[in-house]
């Protein structure tokens, strides 16, 4: 009986501490997500990427820290004016995203980033790279849509690429409009599974539509 009590005690302690750890994780993640809203410079992005990587390093089994680190690294590549570094950032993003993918296979959000990564590669030198990256980019977005048809982010990014593609290749503002509309509809209906799941894209898309499609 006494033994049973000790085991029970131990078990409760474990639960409590685990819960405490989870709280710590949630708090740290929420704090980072909050900071992501105000980041502006490359240095801000690197800071936050490192912060996610530290969480990832401590947690080991959580995919979201790797996911956000990868997302931020792609953003850094798009933001950093030093063209020589752009591919290097993306090489890093590939590595972190691979870890996220192994921890959470068949996750729609991860496939969104896979496509986003190819878009980043493509943007560095579109003329010479479209042959290599266009197809895998679209395949990744398609897979993201299949895995979660309600996810608004694949269409948001497809819309952006379409917007900046010349009209004779099937792009342009007009072609992008219906894709943006569909994405926005999904954004408005989208309910993230929990408070740490990705929500990015909605504000950016609304802002983009306001600027480029004046009523």
């Amino acid at each position, binding site marked *: 009986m006494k033994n049973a009590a000790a085991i029970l005690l131990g078990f409760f302690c474990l639960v*409590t501490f685990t819960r405490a750890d989870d709280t710590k994780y949630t708090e740290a993640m929420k704090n980072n997500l909050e900071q992501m809203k105000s980041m502006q410079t490359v240095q801000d992005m690197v800071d936050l990427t490192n912060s996610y990587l530290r969480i990832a*390093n401590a947690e080991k089994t959580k995919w979201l820290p790797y996911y956000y680190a990868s997302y931020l690294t792609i953003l850094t590549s798009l933001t950093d004016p030093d063209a020589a570094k752009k591919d*290097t950032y993306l090489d890093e993003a590939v590595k972190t995203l691979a870890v996220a993918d192994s921890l959470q296979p068949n996750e729609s959000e991860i496939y969104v980033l896979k496509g986003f990564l190819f878009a980043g590669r493509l943007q560095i030198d579109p003329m010479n790279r479209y042959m290599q990256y266009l197809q895998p980019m679209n395949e990744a977005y398609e897979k993201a849509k299949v895995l979660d048809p309600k996810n608004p982010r694949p269409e948001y990014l497809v819309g952006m690429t379409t917007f900046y593609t010349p009209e004779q290749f099937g*792009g342009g503002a007009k072609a992008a409009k219906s894709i943006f509309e569909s994405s926005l509809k999904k954004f408005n209906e989208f309910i993230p599974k929990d408070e740490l799941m990705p929500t990015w894209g909605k504000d950016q898309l609304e802002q983009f539509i306001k600027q480029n499609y004046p009523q």
Partner: protein
Amino acid sequence: MKMNRCLFLAALMLPFLINAQTRISGKITDDKNSPLPGANIYIKDTYDGVTSKEDGSFSFRTNEKGEVILIASFVGYKKYESKLNLKKGEMKIDISLEEEITQMNAVVVSAGSFEASDEKKGVILKPLDVVTTGATADLYTSLNTLPGAQKVGETEGLFVRGGSASEAKTIIDEMIVQKPFSSSVPDLPSRGRFSPMMFKGTVFSTGGYSAQYGQALSSALILKTEDMPKQTITAINTMVFGFGGAHTQRWENTAFSFEGGYYNLNPYNNVFKQRVDWDRSPSSIDLSTNFRQKLSKNGLLKAFVSYNKSDLSLYLPDLDNIPNKTYYEMKPENIYSNVSYRDIVGDWNLFGGFSYSLDKDRINAAGNNISQDQRLVQTKFTANKKLNENIYLTFGAEVHNTLYDDTYNQLNIKLNEVYTAGFAEGDIYFSNDLAAKVGIRAEHSKVLNKFNIAPRISFAYRLGKYDQLNFAYGRFYQTPEKNFLIQYDKFDYENADHYIANYQYIGENRTFRAEIYYKQYHNLVKGTVYNYPYFNLPVVPFSSDGKGYAKGLDIFWRDSWTIRNCDYWISYSYLDTKREYSNYPTMAFPTFASPHTFSIVFKRWFESISSFVALTYVHASGRPYFNPNNPEFLGDHTDSYNNLSANISYVARWFGSYSVIFFSIDNIAGFANVYGYRYSSDGKISNPVLPATLRSAFLGVFISIGEENPYQ
């Protein structure tokens, strides 16, 4: 109750933990003491850490205590890990990170070579550049706009730095191509046999190439075919002189494609005034098939088979019996196949390949029936392994069996050559800024019954972020050509020593390269096989006593930044060369070399008309030609060569499919180029060697069906 006790314990510990807080601060630098901003410094298995600031400084607090592991990581540097005994209060730690040597960061040895690739960084050309340069969409035409290549109009081939066409070899997927060009008739060049669209990577070496390749005294053109085609697609091509079609089917791990075309220049030759007296204009049937199978994660099986058959006949001027002409008929038939498998097994990168080619020429020259058959079977393997952080080792071997079977009327000559070679090469990285490639190649030829050993070494030293110096030395052997081998059995290998030094700057949008070289030829074959076109010269006995040299300067400049939306490149080559070989009675500047070659390529994408426009201008100073009336051998020179060509590709979408309309004109300005002169045997009559037409134009429509538009 018990639960409370547990919480109570935790609560009891909390103030203790807060009290134990430590502040860790310091500075992080690289091994040259420059600050590293953006590095991640943290304690292993905790959330505690910080990113270093602009000046490399960092500072963070932790509640951990006792022995922990402090980690610092930064892209391109080795991870720093150190045990740390945390003490209450302030701790100061300065960290120095060691640069990580990786193939990605390290300087790339690039003496003597131009590379076109989508995958690698720091390359000078993109595969698209190869397709859109010049008027003919021919691989070799665009390579002729690079420094080191000589403009020779009357025959096909790559003439590199004073070398003859036979000194340049084309290599597809690691294996030598016996006949990269269609067979040609005297003074009329033919095109390359392989479409430039097939290749995803091109390395054009103008000297000092790797020990993995051999049998080319001057130059190696190393081509890699596409791995997996991206998608299922059908293509239809209609051109002014023919039509063709291709279909590619892509499955998850398998791809298959089939391509066919029929070309006939007769209608075209009737429209454009020909300087050639055609009997039957050139026509050909081309068929090819490609197969790809993924056998494991990294294992890829590739197979390529091509067949073509062509036909032409014409009347060549007979200067000894004007106005008589000589009938000449050529019917070549070629089969080329290449099967290879590449995989990663453990730490090993393995490659194995097999290639079979059969090239048959049926010639009727003034009623004489000539047949020339050449069959090549070759196999090659290479293995590559990272030995340690700084050394990558590659080794391999290859065997070629070539069977020559020539018939001149009733006279038949056969020659069976077995060529065996082995090589080993190390890529050594002393640091990210200093790398060397050290290789050795050993070869044996059955016909010559001799061995050779060829050392190759090259270095690259990075000066700054964008520029580097390269040096290369190498020895290159080549077995003499068949026409000599069937005449005499005591030849030795021809060989050449290359010494190359270059400076190169590859910036974001600008590239500059200057290269000097010296090439020393030994044991070039000597002997008179034919007296045409060098009539009344003394007959040179067969020997391996020929010699020669080539030295010069190659300059390349590419800029896609200064003029908006435009990209241009300029090449200049200075060449000084002399050789005594073949039937040359003395040392002479050869007929296939120009002292000065200059070219400029200009490209622009016009968004408004969705067209891509490219202009190419080539200037080459006059080349020597043989005049029997001049006592000085090859003492006469032609006027300089000039050519301005343009091409425009219009991209259109018809019924949801992409189409390209390609239009090009060669020699827009109508420069009267003369490649040389041919003389009658008494030297009294001469005839200029001219391009087949003054100007030429090409129009083609390329339609792709099934290229899915992902946005609709």
